């Protein structure tokens, strides 16, 4: 660990920081505004040590992604504001759907695929807007962006953390639907579709959340911006789940997986190109 407390290299520019106190402030900003002891700060920085040179190949890049993701997950483990809310909302939605469709729908299999994806879609919006919302509220976004790492690494770190939250919530929703609707969604293809769909959702959602974080109406605007762009993912997800729930041949599910995969590939390619634009001069 070659951390020098007197200097801190920010974004290709070497800035000499006179006092140790200043350096500590810089590191605190890097750590996302969490209260760290000096030792924890050093550890955090060591995760991003290749950064000081802004080189070091793919390994260093992945370490930066990991550092951002780990910071988010650690903050979440302490505050429990995102996963808890998303999980409670998801189970609540499943119950509401159960009440809405009970006695009206002859077989729950008819609506279960739609219910699964609607819950994922709406619960996801709740989590995504906290991803940058909490940073903006605490004023730590600027600190995070000052970290001398590629902007795309920050983006991918956020994506990784959000993906983890989503998967935890989905691990609750699928059994909840089994209990409430007696529809078993634990099938390999459904789970694969859910995983790929979630990856695409988080990819586009994290970027749109970053876009709306600077907007005056961010909480209300995020779903309005996000849901129409997610239409292909939603349609494909429901289509894929329906194929399996209806007990049709697995081969019919492959085109859906193809669309979801194509969506994921496009989203990440474009996000990778455009993420620098989102955070330039900020």
């Amino acid at each position: 660990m070659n951390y020098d407390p007197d200097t801190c290299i920010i974004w290709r520019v070497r800035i000499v920081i006179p006092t140790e106190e200043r350096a500590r402030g810089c590191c605190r900003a890097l750590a996302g505004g969490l209260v760290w002891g000096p030792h924890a700060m050093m550890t955090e920085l060591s995760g991003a040590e290749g950064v000081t040179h802004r080189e070091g190949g793919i390994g260093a890049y992945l370490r930066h992604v990991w550092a951002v993701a780990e910071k988010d997950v650690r903050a979440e483990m302490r505050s429990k504001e995102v996963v808890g809310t998303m999980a409670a909302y998801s189970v609540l939605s499943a119950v509401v759907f159960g009440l809405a469709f009970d006695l009206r729908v002859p077989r729950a299999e008819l609506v279960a695929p739609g219910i699964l994806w609607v819950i994922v879609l709406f619960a996801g919006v709740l989590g995504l807007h906290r991803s940058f919302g909490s940073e903006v509220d605490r004023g730590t976004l600027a600190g995070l962006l000052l970290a001398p790492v590629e902007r795309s690494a920050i983006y991918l770190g956020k994506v990784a953390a959000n993906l983890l939250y989503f998967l935890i919530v989905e691990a609750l929703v699928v059994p909840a639907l089994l209990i409430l609707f007696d529809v078993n969604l634990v099938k390999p293809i459904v789970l694969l579709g859910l995983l790929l769909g979630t990856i695409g959702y988080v990819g586009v959602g994290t970027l749109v959340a970053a876009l709306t974080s600077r907007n005056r109406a961010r909480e209300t605007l995020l779903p309005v911006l996000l849901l129409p762009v997610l239409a292909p993912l939603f349609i494909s997800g429901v289509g894929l789940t329906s194929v399996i729930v209806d007990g049709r041949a697995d081969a019919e599910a492959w085109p859906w997986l193809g669309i979801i995969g194509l969506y994921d590939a496009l989203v990440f390619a474009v996000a990778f190109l455009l993420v620098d634009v989102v955070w330039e001069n900020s």
Partner: protein
Amino acid sequence: MSTLANPSRTDRWFKPLLVFDVIAGLAMVTVMWAGLLYAGDAVNLAGEEQAAQRIFYFHIGSNIAALLGFLGSVVGSIGYLFSRRMVWDRWAAASVEIGTIFGILVLLSGSIWAKPAWNTYWTWDPRLTTATITVLIYIAYMLFRNGFDHAQTRARFASVYAIFAFLSVPLTYYSARLFRSIHPIVFDGGNEEAQGSFAIGPTMGQTLTIATIGFALLFFALLFHRVRQFDAEARIEALRERFDE
């Protein structure tokens, strides 16, 4: 920023635009004449359905204009991100606004036609789904633009969103089509492609061309005015800032 140098300069676009407006207006009159009077009746349709078929020219014309708006938003956004000149952003924003109006007209005229032809105002046909989602994206784009105070930030963020939106639309179409083709046909006449279709005669083909050109001209006339308005807005803003100093 050359306009700033001499704010009292007369607007050199005024006269050309006036001429263009008159041309677009005459073109639209021609479209109405051709669509309602000149074009022959659809021979294989009868009664209400035959009368409703004439909305087709209006529908396709609006569709062309909406498509131009959609393309304009992407071209303007990519142009802005590469050149960083605000003028591209104004073209993108104006395209979206005008395109949305025509997009809503496409949906309305389609629904009016669909009732006699399909016996329902609405169905989740891939084209209908895609058109609706696209209009919703446009509306989201306009709401999004409203929430920024800083013009450059607004331009940058709106451009990013417009590019994402552009990518998702073809995928929406393909997924909606796949959804339909695999999905069982629920009610009689669920196969939309077969319902209310008609053979195109010579006068109908000519009318279609006239409608396409007429609506494209109308689109550009409205677009030029909106861009000019945006330019004036930016100029007032810049002058106000200079005045405050």
